[in-house]
């Protein structure tokens, strides 16, 4: 799935994608998308999947998304980053489906005239993704599985609407 363009006009260079194919994220595609002669900095963030969680061996990770809403939220986050920092282009991609250990599950690239804006905006985008984009990750272990919960979701960044979120018991099944 792909959604290009900003709030209006063709000026805002924004690319957001929820990637449903089971292939590694093409990082260069997003870096090249934001690259421009007027930008002196490109900041990127690559989130990769780990092979252990608290001593348990992770066999694989499965992501799912509320795709339409996830794209919509991604776009609004990129728009908010533009409102806060002078950035030239933003790209954000997140995989769904099974992601192998060590592969990128999420990638953000931000181009700006100067590095401070690029880096701050890039951090903002990934932090907001963790807080409010409806994507879920299940860690599958050798002896069970668990739906993960981002702490950012509970810190009020999330829905920004209800303020009635409480962390509950880990939903461990199996082993």
């Amino acid at each position, binding site marked *: 799935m792909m959604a290009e363009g900003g709030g209006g006009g063709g000026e805002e260079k924004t690319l957001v994608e929820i990637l449903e194919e089971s292939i590694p994220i093409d990082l260069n595609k997003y870096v090249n998308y934001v690259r421009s002669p007027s930008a002196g900095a490109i900041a990127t963030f690559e989130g990769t999947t780990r092979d252990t969680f608290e001593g348990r061996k992770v066999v694989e990770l499965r992501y799912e998304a509320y795709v339409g809403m996830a794209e919509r939220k991604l776009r609004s986050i990129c728009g908010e980053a533009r409102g806060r920092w002078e950035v030239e282009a933003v790209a954000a991609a997140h995989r769904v489906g099974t992601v192998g250990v060590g592969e990128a599950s999420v990638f953000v690239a931000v181009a700006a005239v100067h590095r401070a804006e690029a880096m701050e905006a890039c951090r903002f985008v990934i932090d907001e993704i963790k807080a409010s984009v409806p994507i879920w990750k299940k860690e599958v272990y050798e002896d069970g599985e668990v739906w993960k919960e*981002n702490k950012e979701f509970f810190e009020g960044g999330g829905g920004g609407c209800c303020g009635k979120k409480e962390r509950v018991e880990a939903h461990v099944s199996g082993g």
Partner: protein
Amino acid sequence: MADETHQVIDANGEAITTQAPTIRSKAKEPPVEVKVLFFARARDLTGLTDTSLKVPSGSTASYCLSKLFSEFPSLEEIRRSMILALNEEYAPETTVVKHKDELAIIPPISGG
């Protein structure tokens, strides 16, 4: 996740209640039909990706939820951690649902 599991956060300090439906239209109006989506843990608990609900015109999302909890008691597990989205936007439970709305049960997210 031993360090995270028992932490309880309620940002607004709100009591968690299920509101009765707010019926502001006449009783004769036809019921509205709402599509409900279940993701991640919510899907595991209900065994469904989606369902459909018929509620009186003027009902709130909160009322829809109370119907869902009686139909799927297992959802209780995420009652206090989930939030709602209505037509792809996060929405408070006080929102009045309309015919053909899409109501999504959003368990704690874990993207990234």
